[in-house]
């Protein structure tokens, strides 16, 4: 088994002559890291990223199997293909990590993020905020005469779009969870 999905024997010569210029282009990948939920595991994963200079665009973690004490860490990271491969190999080397899935290459997947936005305002702005919330199918989870707290779930792009719209309408506080993701289908 080749756990790195490397192309084998792909070249007669050294890779340097054959390096695809596209390989220097940075890609964004969503990784699902399944870990034992023991003390320090999250610190170990985060320390790997900071210690080796990798990016974390988003990180979500919670215990998903209370019986087996296992957690799922979803990391969105950016890097060249070589760096992404290195990140996966390094994550795989952490003792409490028992699986690393690259959802971006392993097939179609769904990604969702949840966010809460507090929008303060009255009059026209308040009406407009409410109207846009309807368009985005956003829930209102708290309301006063001059404020709303909206709850939005969707892709990160959808949340970006909605928060951009809310900014001129009185967005004062914004909390987002980071990405949770699963592969599609029955695998």
């Amino acid at each position, binding site marked *: *088994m080749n756990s790195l999905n490397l192309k*084998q024997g792909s070249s007669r010569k050294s890779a340097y002559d054959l390096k695809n210029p596209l390989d220097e282009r940075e890609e964004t990948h969503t990784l699902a890291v399944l870990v034992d939920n023991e003390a320090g595991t999250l610190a170990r994963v985060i320390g790997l990223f900071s210690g080796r200079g990798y990016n974390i665009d988003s990180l979500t973690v919670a215990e998903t199997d209370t019986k087996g004490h296992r957690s799922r860490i979803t990391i969105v990271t950016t890097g060249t293909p070589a760096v992404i491969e290195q990140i996966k190999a390094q994550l795989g080397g952490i003792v409490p990590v028992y699986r690393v899935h690259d959802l971006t290459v392993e097939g179609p997947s769904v990604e969702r993020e949840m966010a809460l936005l507090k929008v303060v305002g009255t009059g026209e702005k308040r009406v407009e905020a409410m109207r846009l919330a309807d368009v985005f199918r956003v829930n209102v989870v708290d309301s006063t005469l001059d404020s709303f707290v909206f709850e939005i779930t969707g892709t990160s792009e959808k949340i970006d779009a909605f928060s951009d719209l809310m900014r001129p309408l009185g967005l004062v506080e914004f909390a987002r969870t980071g990405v949770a993701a699963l592969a599609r289908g029955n695998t």
Partner: protein
Amino acid sequence: MSREMTGARIVIEALREQGVDTVFGYPGGAVLPIYDEIFQQNDIKHILVRHEQGATHAAEGYARSTGKPGVVLVTSGPGATNAVTGMTDALMDSIPIIVLSGQVPTFMIGNDAFQEADTVGITRPCSKHNWLVKDTADLAQTIHKAFHIATTGRPGPVLIDIPKDVQFASARYTPMNKASKGHYAPQLKGDIDAITAAVKALETAKRPIIYSGGGVINSGAGASQLLRELVSATNIPVTSTLMGLGAYPASGENWLGMLGMHGTYESNMAMHDCDYMLCIGARFDDRITGRTDAFSPDSLKVHIDIDPSSINKNIHVDIPIIGDIAHVLEDFLKVWKSRGRKTDAAAVKDWQHVINDWRDIKCLAYRGSDTIIKPQYALQRLEALTKGRDRYITTEVGQHQMWAAQFMGFEDPNRFMTSGGLGTMGYGLPASIGVQVAHPDSLVINVAGDASFLMNMQELGTAAQFRLPVKQFILNNERLGMVRQWQQLLHGERYSSSWSESLPDFVKLAEAFGAKGIVVSDPAELDSAIQEMIDHDGPVILDCLVEKHENCFPMIPSGKAHNDMLLGDDSTEGAIDASGSILV
């Protein structure tokens, strides 16, 4: 039946069950219960070091020379932080050591208690794994798991932090065979398709080379044996990293010498010009590759390593094989034999001729002297006078280390202990102590520089106390030789702080510790001084006063390729350009 016992007793019981005979340590408040248990038994010997860093390096020396894990016992706070350098060293060089550290009682953790440090936090990036044990019932299982993790896969240091109340409390002991190992189980067998592809490529290779590393030694004696079998069967030239010296014998016909920054001309040229590179248990470190975009441009590269993260980290390889070296080499040989033992023998013979022309350059030649001891000459004499003996060599870090690798011949694995990846000055003396503890009747020599030696010289006290006859062979140039060499090449001969002023009198220093001291400065007296050092039954410092401004050649300057080596002082003018000077 498992018995109820205190946490401190559990520690001793688990170590005993794991076959530990020696612990290197230093007591303190947070480990007193464990020391009390050590006092009351005779199976496990405790070697009292003089500084916790010494304990970690001694454990590394013990581990590297025996193939068994080394065990360290330190107290909380400063005890644990002093162990950090040795743990980082072991992580870089893949040496299995188990560090047991005391911790303040669980109910005081986080209170900034006396001698409290966040030991698992501090050692997380410098250990393969670590644990804070909060319940005595988990202690035995954790220790067993720690041995499993330290010694399997790519070996490395692990740490178990044990609060003092956990040492006092009682619980049932979990024996080794009942302990869960968890899901950590590195892949040992290599992918047979990849191995076959690698064999096929070898069959038609015209300029093949084997580049072996410390992974061969870590994989056990069988791996070195298989490497030798592969080389003699296929007649491929073989070179090795600093960490891999001895896996293939230096007297072997196909031996090219060490490669890399201070490797031989023939090995580096062969690496550059080869068409087939079989990397076995090495990791394409920057000391090895030089400029990566000019590294071996025409070769098909096969990389065998147990650590998937070593693959394609620095150099892209064509055929990666993940697995244990011994397992993979066994399959490799099997496949090669079953396919008819083919090589392009004629082409390989031509290749050997090319390599012999490079050998004729005699890259290790130096200007001799009748009046001053040349460091290279000192090592040649040390080699000549100790060759064939049951001998272990450790080194510190610097010029002397590279000269030792160049001028001493290693016939077997586990005979050369040196700090490769981290480059830790102060490694050699405590490492020699660890080796001597494991091999009490062998000749153990630490090849040292004057500056490195001072970094852990307090361990002479350990050598004296435990009657460990370690020989400290100091090439004394009153300089930080390698720093000075770089300042000469890179910084206009401005020797900023690379001069050891106020060096101690090493003879008196030895005597102050109850050891023997010898000083030699005349080349004519060198042999008798070395002989006197070897013959003395006890620890010795031989202070060998050598040429002060000797440079270590050959050298691939920073930012240069393998075929761009400096062979001697004549070629150093403007050797390193601006882009090279930012590299280390």
